[in-house]
């Protein structure tokens, strides 16, 4: 295989993530400062950012591909919008955690709220801001693979192309490369937590990415026209009749996927915990979990759609496999946090390690295990709306079909429905969280 064939998609993926993160910080930081200064309308902007963040990245990407055209510029646009909302909201929250008396001592000089945020809150929260910026970049890398799946360029687009060309060797190589990139970025994130200024390394990458992906500003006029042509959102009678089924399928993908994941994660998590299984076995399982987590749901879904065919089963399995990796790691940590004394008591009865794990580890860590699973369910409700776009059924598939057939009024309607669906899932998640909290 030609190395250059690999270098270009890898570069595009990194460049999209870098450029998207850079735009997101450039737009999100001033918004966050505005919110933190409690300037007029700050509350409304904060809520708007929270709402905007509920549109899944892939949904934004499919939208951007129509508006901006196929290629990395669409990916950068989608990532920029999604991460501006995320960075703006989170930066505002971080700036809000700065100690009140410090800010008051600056206000006492007669400084404006903005000056106080800039001179007091910004430097005080700088470490957290940089660390979160690096975290956003980590997420953007995964997302930039995902948005590629609908034609936004990079590794995602290559994977789809290779699957369609039945070149499974190339698919395998691309996924291995993807896992490698995710690990490098994870490692980078860990370095940033130690030395926050390292986060600034994203800036040159972002600038190069922006230059490389030919900023969308040039196409602004075209973009506005295309967007206007989508208005108003309309679903015809046939689509309306099919809507309940699509929504049910999406729910099914999320619930079945999360259930499967939890089932496998309990067993993998117990083995992975530094406690019950022999060290080499635990180590090996931890690495397996790492791999499962590294491959985004959408990429798993792309392969499964080929393997098990188009439909909700592929989507549920895709969410299940990825979430098993995520939950397995979290469950292992929860079990590791169970007090040693409690398990020693069981060991004293002569119980074997499987019995100790089952009757000691799981029940004692049940609280966090349930909490992680519910949190994951909320996440999967969101993701279920997007795996559909690669052929796994539900609202996502309906959205994708309408884009492919140029039914843009319908497509806009599905974007709004997806948005509403995710917002409801989040509201439900908050209700759960508040009932679970002691």
């Amino acid at each position, binding site marked *: 295989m030609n190395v250059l064939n690999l270098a270009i998609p890898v570069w595009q993926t990194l460049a999209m993530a870098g450029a998207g993160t850079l735009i997101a910080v450039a737009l999100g930081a001033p918004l966050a400062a505005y919110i933190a200064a409690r300037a007029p309308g700050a509350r409304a902007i904060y809520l708007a950012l929270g709402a905007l963040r509920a549109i899944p990245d892939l949904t934004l990407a499919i939208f951007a591909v129509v508006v901006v055209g196929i290629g990395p510029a669409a990916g950068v646009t989608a990532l920029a919008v999604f991460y501006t909302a995320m960075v703006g909201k989170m930066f505002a929250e971080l700036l809000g955690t700065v100690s009140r*008396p410090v800010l008051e001592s600056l206000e*006492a000089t007669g*400084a404006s709220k903005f000056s106080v945020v800039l001179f007091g809150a910004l430097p005080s929260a700088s470490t957290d801001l940089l660390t979160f910026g690096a975290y956003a970049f980590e997420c953007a890398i995964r997302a930039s693979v995902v948005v590629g799946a609908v034609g936004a360029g990079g590794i995602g687009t290559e994977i789809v192309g290779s699957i369609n060309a039945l070149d499974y060797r190339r698919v395998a190589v691309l996924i291995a490369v993807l896992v490698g990139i995710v690990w490098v970025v994870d490692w980078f994130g860990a370095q940033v937590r130690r030395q926050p200024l390292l986060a600034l390394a994203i800036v040159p990458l972002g600038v190069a990415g922006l230059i490389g992906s030919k900023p969308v500003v040039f196409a602004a006029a075209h973009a506005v026209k295309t967007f206007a042509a989508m208005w108003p959102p309309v679903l015809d009678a046939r689509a309306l009749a099919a809507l309940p089924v699509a929504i049910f399928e999406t729910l099914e993908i999320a619930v079945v996927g999360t259930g499967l994941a939890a089932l496998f994660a309990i067993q993998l998590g117990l083995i992975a915990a530094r406690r019950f299984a022999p060290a080499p076995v635990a180590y090996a399982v931890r690495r397996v979990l790492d791999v499962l987590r590294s491959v985004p749901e959408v990429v798993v879904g792309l392969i499964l759609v080929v393997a098990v065919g188009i439909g909700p089963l592929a989507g549920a399995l895709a969410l299940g496999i990825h979430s098993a990796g995520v939950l397995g790691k979290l469950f292992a940590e929860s079990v590791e946090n169970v007090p040693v004394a409690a398990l020693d008591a069981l060991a004293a009865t002569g119980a074997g390690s499987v019995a100790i794990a089952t009757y000691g580890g799981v029940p004692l860590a049940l609280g966090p295990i349930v909490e992680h699973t519910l949190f994951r369910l909320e996440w999967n409700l969101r993701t279920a709306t997007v795996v559909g776009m690669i052929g796994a059924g539900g609202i996502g598939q309906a959205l994708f079909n309408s884009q492919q057939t140029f039914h843009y009024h319908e497509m806009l309607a599905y974007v709004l429905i997806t948005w509403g669906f995710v917002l409801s899932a989040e509201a439900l998640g908050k209700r759960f969280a508040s009932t679970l909290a002691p």
Partner: protein
Amino acid sequence: MISVERLVVRFPGAARAALNGIDLDVLPGERLAILGASGSGKTTLLRAIAGFVTPVSGRILVDGRVIDTHDAKALRAQRRRIGMIAQSHDMVERLSVERNVLAGKLGAWSAWHALRALVHLTPGERAEAKAILERVGIGDFGRRRTGSLSGGERQRVAIARALAQNPRVVLADEPIASLDEDYARRILELLCRAAEEERVTLVCTLHQPALAHEFFHRVVRLDRGSIGESSPPLHV
């Protein structure tokens, strides 16, 4: 210079008023000490003068103008004339000493100026910070990180910040708490000398009657939110 008229402050949910009908006049250039036990309302009184506490009734005038916490623009203009040295001498730990000193000028700066100063200080600004730091006896500290300073050193930076503001009034809240007697004396000397040189009105809370009488023109006592006995103005 400062007139406090029948000031009543009550915090939400509190059983009794934190300040219970305070009447107090401070003359221009006067140095006034306020003595009082913990919880007697010293901090609340100073914060009310700086417009951080909204009174239930009564009013405060500084330089003839009412402190109105509901008029943000006028309040900022008022605060520019009032230097505040808070009890916990709160500073931006992450920033250098010189930036914390120059923070006294935030009220006079635009937000853009603040952003620029965060990234880069001009040689003129550096020199100004150094000159003020020299007055409080830590001329070489400019480039140090404020988080690494000791309590006494921070107190000096807090005074330097108030000086950088070039105010008409300085409110100092227990500036010598948690300093040993020797150091406390030096800080008071510094504060009072600066007030004298700049012709600034100084209101300072503290716990030590002896030091209060030694360094200040007048001493009043605050007791559970009311002004108690007061020594007459000595010489202004």
